[in-house]
């Protein structure tokens, strides 16, 4: 461990940690933002969010294989497809248990994890899937820092989508309705907002963001049907640490978490990849049982 730590301190490796942390962070930002939106507006705890991410990756994979579409364009198509599936899931499943106990939502999402994972496994087998990017071998270097063009595009797309998401939430009528529903559902209903429509839209948007994360994950590393379960729970860790319902917390938290994980993997080894986040979560909850920054409105 000491040797690994000494290696990590050297500058080029530090740069690699930061770059890889940014890439992983981008995926967490998208995942946590979608989750945060769903939790903030609907107060639904959806542990099956990661499965929608993987589903998005597979849909993009299919689109790029079957139609030869550039994977970066297929992101937007897979957002639509997964968003529609998300809306259906909301109608069929989560809408039925909304307002009953949180336990029902947890267990429902557990059932959904099993259903989605195995459905994807039946459709696309268990072998890891990697989306071939046309820019696979291009490397851009700035002085001593060199990175694949893909990675740069991943960061660019994340920024683009997050800016679009921010504008949607802050500047449009729909976004205002969502924020109203997040603050007070009954009052929003009295103001003439159709809360059911907002719920559907929120869930669709949240899962669409997850689908983006899945596509980027499939481009940068690879995906298997079972790869979504733990990232979703890590994303919950991120939104608890970043302040429940706070969009800025989710975005910044995701990025910081990516960097922390990347550093921890280099120093402690890959075994600890999944454990690091939960150790931080447990320590944080011992100090502040309600989460680091409490609960906020979108």
């Amino acid at each position, binding site marked *: 461990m000491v040797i690994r730590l000494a290696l990590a301190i050297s500058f080029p490796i530090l740069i690699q940690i930061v770059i890889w942390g940014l890439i992983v962070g981008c995926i967490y930002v998208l995942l946590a933002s979608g989750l945060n939106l769903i939790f903030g507006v609907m107060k639904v705890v959806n542990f099956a969010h990661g499965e929608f991410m993987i589903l998005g990756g597979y849909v993009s994979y299919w689109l790029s294989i079957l139609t030869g579409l550039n994977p970066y364009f297929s992101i937007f198509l897979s957002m639509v497809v997964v968003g529609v599936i998300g809306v259906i899931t909301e109608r069929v499943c989560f809408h039925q*248990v909304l307002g009953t106990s949180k336990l029902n939502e947890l267990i429902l999402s557990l*059932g959904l994890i099993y259903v989605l994972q195995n459905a994807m496994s039946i459709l696309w087998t268990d072998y890891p899937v990697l989306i071939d990017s046309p820019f696979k071998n291009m490397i851009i270097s700035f002085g001593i820092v060199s990175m694949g063009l893909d990675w740069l595009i991943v960061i660019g797309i994340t920024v683009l989508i997050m800016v679009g998401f921010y504008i949607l939430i802050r500047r449009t009528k729909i976004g205002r309705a969502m924020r109203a529903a997040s603050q007070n559902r009954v009052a929003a209903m009295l103001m003439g907002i159709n809360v059911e429509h907002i719920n559907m839209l929120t869930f669709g948007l949240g899962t669409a963001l997850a689908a983006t994360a899945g596509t980027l994950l499939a481009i940068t590393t690879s995906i298997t049907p079972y790869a979504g379960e733990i990232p979703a729970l890590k994303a919950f860790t991120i939104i608890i640490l970043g302040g429940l319902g706070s969009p800025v917390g989710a975005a910044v938290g995701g990025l910081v978490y990516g960097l922390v994980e990347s550093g921890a993997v280099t120093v402690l080894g890959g075994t600890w990849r999944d454990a690091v986040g939960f150790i931080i979560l447990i320590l944080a909850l011992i100090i502040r049982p309600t989460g680091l920054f409490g609960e906020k409105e979108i």
Partner: protein
Amino acid sequence: MKIINDLCLIWRNPKFYLLFLLLVISLLIPFFQISIYLMHVLILTFFFIGYSSSWNLLAYSGQVSFGHAAFLGIGAYVTTLFTIQTSLPFIGILMGAIVSAFVGFFIGLTCVRLREWFLALVTFGFSIIMIALTIELDWLTGGTLGLTVPKLFPSINQYQYYFYYYYVMLTLAVFLVLLFHFITRSKVGLAFAAIRENESEAKATGIDVVKYRLLAFTISAFFTGLMGAFYAHFIGYINHQIYSPENSFWPIIISVIGGLATLEGPVIGSLLRFLIYEFLRIIEPWVRTIGPGMVTIYPKMQVLLFGAILVVVIILMPKGIAPWLRKFLMSGR
């Protein structure tokens, strides 16, 4: 005195006759020269009754753990390491349960003030941390290669071992269900139920919420560790997979389908799991005729089916099968 009173009352309960019939049948099953496979599955069914009951006791106090495999694994690893050193398996099993209870106490301590889904996340995270810890401490735990667990008692062959182990697991399952029956009927059980139904009202009536939640966590962890230890000696091999999320999720699926926070829920759920798996196995040759791809797809369809059952149960009857069955039995009287 209360226990004797309870035992007298039990005769008037129609549920009792059903359980008694089940018990007699399960006592007689090994004498019918059933296959070693069926023996294995039945032992696992009893294991799941005990494990899910332990999980369900925690749910009875309003706390839902998503990482009970951690306690299962701690019990299993402690007894394995102890038995390898000293070849005293029964003391090892007790040690496993005690260490598991000890760890459960500390996890409970971090969880007492958390809301339910934070608790689910923390317990799940704990089982993931245990995976990393087990792989990292490979000089002790054998890492990913795992360890061979010594047998609980000597036997001539596998069948004889299973034959005796069948009764060991059956006794354990019956013992745990009866024990939890008495716990839930006691003052402690009432406190658990009060906390589950409404925490602030429970606090207002003078119940020490923190104390009782911790107690539930410790008892649950103790018996989960116990079941884990017996499981390890039965399977004969453990590695970090024992902490896997599937092991954490099975008791949830079983208890919820059977009936969350009811005594008979885990029993019904485990038996249902057994029956569904056996039915799926019986129709397997027929399914295989559909196409060559079914060989790989079929096991996945089985797990998918359980997920779908869980979703349907939670939407249509969130209290599970037990209340429905209870009503059915009561109306027949």
